[in-house]
């Protein structure tokens, strides 16, 4: 895979059909995410990121690896503007998130679907309601909610479990629900923060396969992980962080540095 989008037109049109919306194809090969010279120092003086340069083109699949405390979580927080970079710029889909007025922040977050290690599902809502929740609380027209939720549940293969609540589901099914919720906004970028951290190896592979399929449909995926086996086996682009710096950024890389 190169640094520009190689998404086949057929896949794109399939995705548009699947997600029920067209999108301007003209901007297809521009970058979804550009980090330029980003440094983040927390108020306690700890510098979590230093001089980070990162470009993620649309349609890319990127593994973000590195030991705990390397800055992966901070990087993700900057993308969703949970934190603001001390210096440098974070440009998502052409917008500098640090310079956004407060009111625009929710709109940028809708361009990102985020999946966590601990799923973050609402325990009292069913699978269907959990996914629909993301549309309801963002003021989507009620008419559009049902078809959109049905579509993403079909995509992640949970149509049969739609009426179950999270405690009745396996870990893999819960994570697939979270992925469906992340997808339902038709995001530009899926951020998966250790999505397989709580799952056994077989289920982990299922989740990875699902993310790959979503990526094939044209959604850019950024996945932070400790799962060396998966990273090494897939030979996708790997960005390695250590002590707040990007120490490696290679396509077809493995989890560990190969000298």
């Amino acid at each position, binding site marked *: 895979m190169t640094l520009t989008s190689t998404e086949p037109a057929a896949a794109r049109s399939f995705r548009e059909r699947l997600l029920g919306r067209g999108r301007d194809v003209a901007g297809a090969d521009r970058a979804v995410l550009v980090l330029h010279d980003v440094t983040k120092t927390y108020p306690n003086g700890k510098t979590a990121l230093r001089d980070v340069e990162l470009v993620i083109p649309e349609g890319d699949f990127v593994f973000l690896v590195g030991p705990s405390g390397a800055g992966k979580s901070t990087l993700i927080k900057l993308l*969703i*503007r*949970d934190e603001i970079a001390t210096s440098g710029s974070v440009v998502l889909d052409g917008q500098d998130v640090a310079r956004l007025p*407060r*009111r625009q*922040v*929710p*709109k*940028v*977050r*809708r361009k*990102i679907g*985020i999946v966590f290690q601990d799923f*973050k599902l*609402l325990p*009292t809502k069913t699978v269907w309601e959990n996914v629909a*929740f*993301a549309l*309801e*609380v*963002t*003021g989507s*027209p*009620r008419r559009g909610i049902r078809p959109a939720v049905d579509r993403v549940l079909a995509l992640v293969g949970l149509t049969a479990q739609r009426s179950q609540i999270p405690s009745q589901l396996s870990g893999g099914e819960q994570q697939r629900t979270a992925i469906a*919720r992340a997808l339902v*906004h038709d995001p530009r970028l899926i951020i998966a923060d250790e999505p397989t951290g709580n799952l056994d190896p077989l289920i982990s592979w299922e989740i990875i396969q699902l993310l790959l399929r979503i990526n094939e449909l044209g959604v850019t995926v950024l996945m932070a992980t400790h799962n060396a086996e998966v990273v090494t086996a897939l030979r996708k682009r790997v960005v390695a962080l250590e002590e707040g710096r990007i120490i490696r950024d290679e396509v077809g890389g493995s989890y560990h540095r190969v000298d």
Partner: protein
Amino acid sequence: MISFVVFSLRRAWQGFWRNALMSLAATATMVLMLVLLAGFWIIQTGLLSALDFTESKVEVVANLKVDATPSQIADLGARIKAMPQVAGATLITREEALARFQQSMANQGREDLTKYLDSNPFPASYEIRLTDPGLASTVADALQPTNQPAVRNVLDTKETAKNVKTVTDIMRTAGTVILLVIGVIVLFIIVNTIRLAVFARSEEIEIMRLVGASDAFIRWPFVFEGAMVGLFGALITLGALYALANPIGGFMVDFFRVLPLSFGSLTRDLVLLVFGAGLGLGVIGSWLSVRTYLIK
């Protein structure tokens, strides 16, 4: 806009019942606080009307000369009523003064000694009600015999008036301060209770933020939920007060038997106070509590 309001109301209703325990705890706190507030307010109202009654008892009495002619008396009455400090004046004729004395003797079970008198010794007098008891000395000075030839003397109520004025002023201020202090305490307790209820839902708020819900979509369901807690609290409080109204009312009437208190507008004011405070506290409480979770 309408769909937003419908959404918020629906979510508030669901939120209230899905976290029934927290909501009931908040409502119970709200009820206790409103009962406290309403109780002190009732006491304050009783106190104020008792003070008004006491103050209305402060009056200036001008005794008239026995030989004052009817036209002098009428003239004096007109002058008194024209004074800006005077709320009203009643002429007590000599015969009425005698009858009053006889009545009061009879009430005390003492012998009526007036039958041994060959003439009525009581002078006619004007009993003058004041707009403000603090003005007693002004009116008394203006009515001294040197200024008004028909007046024999003016009963010296200056000291009494001053004392009553001091005491009632202190009690009014103290009552208002106590009510305000209770109001602030109630606000803090309610805010903290609602904060706990919101904290129990912090996971939900976090998810809303992550999927890109705007501040309004996060805030208003909670504000409506706070309003629901306030409304339910107010309804329960008023229900409890209504149930207790008869026994307590009877006790109050017994207690204040001597005072002609008017409780006419009390019920209406109380309903307004309880609903207003419940709604206001619920809304302010949730507004402040949910603020912590909004976009930095």
